[in-house]
């Protein structure tokens, strides 16, 4: 039951066994909880929360603390080396490229994706076939980053410009149609990083559009009407009515996308594997930890990722508090 399932029937049986085992645990918890009558909240609450607290302690808290500890050790995790891994991240030229690329990702993706999402939400607001138009933009959200990577790698595909060879990648075909030379798009740095960022924008714009569209529709009609009676023009309406009203939603969207972007791994892994100077922290963490067996450095990269997420979350919570107050 706890061994590797190899055949189809083994796999399905193991899944069934896992679900049954889990159901038995829940059943037991509910059975014991049912025997406490009256208002004995404490005992019941402890029962209800026990599995959650256990899983989070073992599966998130302990590994997180252990990674922080391991980040002060060398590649084999045997010798304590203080802050050397962090010094490497901040001084080694390869690692600096990783930091630079991560900065590009986090600075570009959230704003472009939110901008496109907001523009599209306004353009199709109350238009005919609004939900269909939205679904087109939103569909990439349901596709895996791996599949999105394959889709865009094909867009960027390159064929040398000689004789009767024709381009099969759409982007290079457009370049040729416009009279340019086809480029090895995913090889030239730092252009290639921006081409990978385009994939993330393609995926996240749908998220931005959905949330912002809901926020726009929630603006009370009388505010809009009052502004119109005051003779506010279209840009004024956007600048002084729409934008202030959806500001909290815009902040949530930008910060959510920024956090997601910091952790982006699949796109880089699928499209370039981090080669040609395209690696980012999340990808470098994986390469160092599992490919190069440089585990101390991998741990330090994971910690850096964690540290970078914190200010974004704090900013988000502060803004939300302010808008609620």
């Amino acid at each position: 039951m706890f061994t590797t399932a190899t055949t189809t029937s083994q796999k399905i049986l193991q899944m069934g066994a896992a679900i049954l085992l889990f159901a038995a645990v829940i059943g037991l918890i509910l059975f014991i909880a049912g025997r406490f009558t009256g208002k004995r909240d404490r005992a019941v609450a402890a029962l209800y929360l026990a599995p959650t607290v256990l899983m989070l302690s073992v599966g998130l808290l302990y590994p997180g603390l252990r990674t922080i500890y391991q980040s002060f050790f060398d590649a084999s995790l045997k010798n304590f080396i203080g802050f050397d891994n962090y010094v490497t991240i901040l001084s080694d030229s390869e690692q600096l490229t990783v930091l630079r690329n991560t900065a590009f990702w986090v600075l570009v993706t959230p704003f472009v994706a939110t901008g496109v999402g907001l523009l599209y939400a306004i353009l199709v607001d109350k238009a005919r076939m609004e939900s269909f138009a939205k679904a087109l933009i939103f569909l990439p959200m349901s596709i895996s980053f791996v599949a999105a990577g394959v889709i865009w790698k094909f867009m960027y595909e390159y064929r040398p410009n000689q004789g009767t060879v024709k381009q099969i990648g759409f982007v290079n075909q457009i370049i040729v149609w416009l009279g340019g030379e086809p480029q090895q798009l995913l090889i030239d740095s730092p252009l290639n990083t921006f081409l990978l960022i385009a994939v993330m924008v393609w995926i996240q714009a749908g998220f931005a559009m959905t949330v912002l569209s809901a926020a726009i529709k929630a603006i009370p009609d009388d505010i809009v009407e009052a502004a119109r009676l005051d003779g506010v023009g279209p840009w004024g309406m956007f600048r002084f009515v729409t934008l202030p009203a959806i500001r909290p939603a815009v902040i949530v969207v930008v910060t959510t996308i920024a956090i997601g972007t910091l952790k982006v791994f699949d796109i880089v892994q699928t499209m370039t594997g981090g080669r040609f100077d395209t690696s980012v922290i999340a990808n470098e963490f994986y390469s160092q930890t599992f490919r190069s067996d440089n585990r101390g450095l991998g741990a330090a990269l994971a910690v850096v990722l964690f540290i970078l997420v914190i200010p974004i979350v704090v900013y988000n919570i502060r803004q939300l508090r302010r808008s609620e107050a």
Partner: protein
Amino acid sequence: MTTAAPLTTTPVSKAETKKLSAAATAKAKLSSPWASLAAVVLAVIWTIPTFGLLITSFRTTEDIRRTGWWTTFTNPLFTLDNYKAVLDPEQAGANLPDSFLNSLVMTIPSVLIPLCLASLAAYAFAWMNFPGKNFLFIAIFALQIVPLQVTLLPLLQLFVSWDIDGTFWTVWLSHSTFALPLAIYLLHNFIKEVPSSLIEAARIDGAGHVSIFFRVLLPLLTPALAAFGIFQFLWVWNDLLVSLTFAGSPAISPLTVQLSNLTGTRGTAWYLLSAGAFVSIIVPVTVFLLLQRYFVRGLLAGSVKG
């Protein structure tokens, strides 16, 4: 997916002016033909990449290698051979039918387990009193921001010491754990909104916590459970990082891992990659199209995950 929506802006007649939202007013006055054109252009740009690869997946190997997919319209020739090839382990060099099953086997428990556990926990936080409640709730809420990367290596070492490395258990346990903070937060927000009079009435009738949960709350919770369920389903099905770390071996690896490997080993075999990509896309896109409303609701409930 093929055509862009024929978008028209709302005509600004006197009768309709009142109903227009701020955005619509802004748009209408930005001269409507340009606004429509911009919307169509964006829609086309967003659709072309997927559409191009979809067309490609039905073209012959020879055609794919020689010409771009856009030439198909003047010279149409379609085949299912690419799908046959990619689903045949001998030809593809990757076992997609098996990994399709693996994806399913991984995903189903990884959705059910956190849903049940989070409902129990959210109920406890919303309707019970116990010491340390606020502290514990904030602690769980804060765990949402921990990047998965921070947990992976120590977790792998734990799984090895428990002797379950390389089994589905690693994936079920880790995905269930990672989902809990967000699930508890979302469900708690939802449960909190249930009028306390309902709960009180059930209590006066002598109902205990178990029967209140099943008879009163569960029916009300269905939309929230559906929203989070779909969210988690797509997340697990589309995940690469967790699977690559814990389930990288061919016997149990899911579609994302196999497809990702294929881009490494057969990076220029577009007849395989195109068909493979759509084999991996079919389930999430179907789920998304059928249950879009719930999915959007889940998104709007706020999501900071990973």
